[in-house]
């Protein structure tokens, strides 16, 4: 005890310096988004390699569940072919899919990110949407040559535009933190009829996701007279704890749409 006190007395200058400097760096990293972006995408380059190695080992233990997921997906695809669902319709946007493996994933933080094992080399760019066979995962935040960082929908920054499958009303999806199985829906007005169990899907307006990707079902809702919008809580279809493989959505016509729409702002 006496030694400890002597130690503190001897080095109090250095200890206070380290505490205050640490706090400053913490402020710096939290509040400066430009610098933060550069640092994140730089570290992504190196941490991606480390996660890849650890993932190569751990994936053997999950082969069983992965096989099941792939089987399910296969069967779904067979069904769609037999129902002639896949048609080349001229008036719908065309999307291509790049499949990839998740090599790092977080679900318990306030702002969650995923890392996947494909990057610029494979044609992934910032701002592309990411889905899995059950539902929506998130949006690509930044890419390095071989890896990409994805803002999952379990993040304060993410807001995905959605619509109700039955009523066709548009709203946006937000995550309030804490539980990775539920999320909130905003901007659905009070007068819209909702039923518990209704499906929420992506709307086709954005260039990020194709229309009609499942997101979740309504778990509970409450009218809010202050905002005029309903507070809706949904169960997400995607189990972020289990998901292993994702598809990055690549729309060749999206640039054309964005260019056309940017004329309005000029």
């Amino acid at each position, binding site marked *: 005890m006496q030694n400890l006190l002597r130690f503190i007395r001897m080095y109090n200058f250095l200890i*206070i310096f380290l505490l205050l400097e640490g706090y400053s760096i913490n402020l*710096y990293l939290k509040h400066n988004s430009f610098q933060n972006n550069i640092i994140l995408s730089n570290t992504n380059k190196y941490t991606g390699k480390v996660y890849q190695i650890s993932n190569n080992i751990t994936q053997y233990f999950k082969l069983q569940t992965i096989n099941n997921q792939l089987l399910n997906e296969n069967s779904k695809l067979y069904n769609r072919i037999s129902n002639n669902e896949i048609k080349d319709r001229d008036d719908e946007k065309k999307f291509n899919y790049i499949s990839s493996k998740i090599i790092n994933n977080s679900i318990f933080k306030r702002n969650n990110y995923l890392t996947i094992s494909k990057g610029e080399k494979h044609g992934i760019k910032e701002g592309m949407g990411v889905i899995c066979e059950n539902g929506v995962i998130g949006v690509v935040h930044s890419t390095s040559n071989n890896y990409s960082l994805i803002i999952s929908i379990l993040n304060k920054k993410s807001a995905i535009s959605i619509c109700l499958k039955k009523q066709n009303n548009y709203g946006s999806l937000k995550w309030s933190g804490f539980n990775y199985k539920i999320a909130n829906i905003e901007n659905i007005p009070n007068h819209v009829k909702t039923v518990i169990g209704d499906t929420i899907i992506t709307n086709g307006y954005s260039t990020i996701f194709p229309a009609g990707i499942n997101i979740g079902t309504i778990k509970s809702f409450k009218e809010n007279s202050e905002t005029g919008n309903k507070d809706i809580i949904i169960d997400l279809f995607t189990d972020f704890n289990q998901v292993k493989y994702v598809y990055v959505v690549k729309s060749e016509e999206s640039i054309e749409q964005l260019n056309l729409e940017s004329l309005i702002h000029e």
Partner: protein
Amino acid sequence: MLPIYLIIQIYILNEILFASYINPYIYLIILIIMPYKIPKWFLLFYAFIIGFLIDLFSGTLGIHSSACLILVLLKSPISKITIPHNIIEETDELVMQKIGAKSFILFSFILVLIHHTILFILEHVALDFQILLKIIASTIITTIIISITQLFFFKS
């Protein structure tokens, strides 16, 4: 004196970007002239608070405060090298009229250089020729401005 320098910094100098490279920070003078006698832990908190205030007003939380803290950390070793011994009392402020023009300019130049190097690297998250130029040009201008303010107090 503290509020005057902060107001000059926030309202005048923060708005100025000479020749798109030079961004002087006069408020450093508050930390540079602190006498030897002030306890070091107080100096650290003081530097943090000043840096934090400047950060608040320029919208760059954490950048100035970490640069100021490192300035204070390195202040006493650098003062030992640049300021002649036995020339001042412990309670004297390290102003130009006490320690002489030559050693004051050298002393403040080194401290300002350290501060600006950390500041601009944190701000741009890069280190290339342009940023080196910005660091050196700003350091020279800040040192000149600090020396000029010292002249005001020469006779009083």
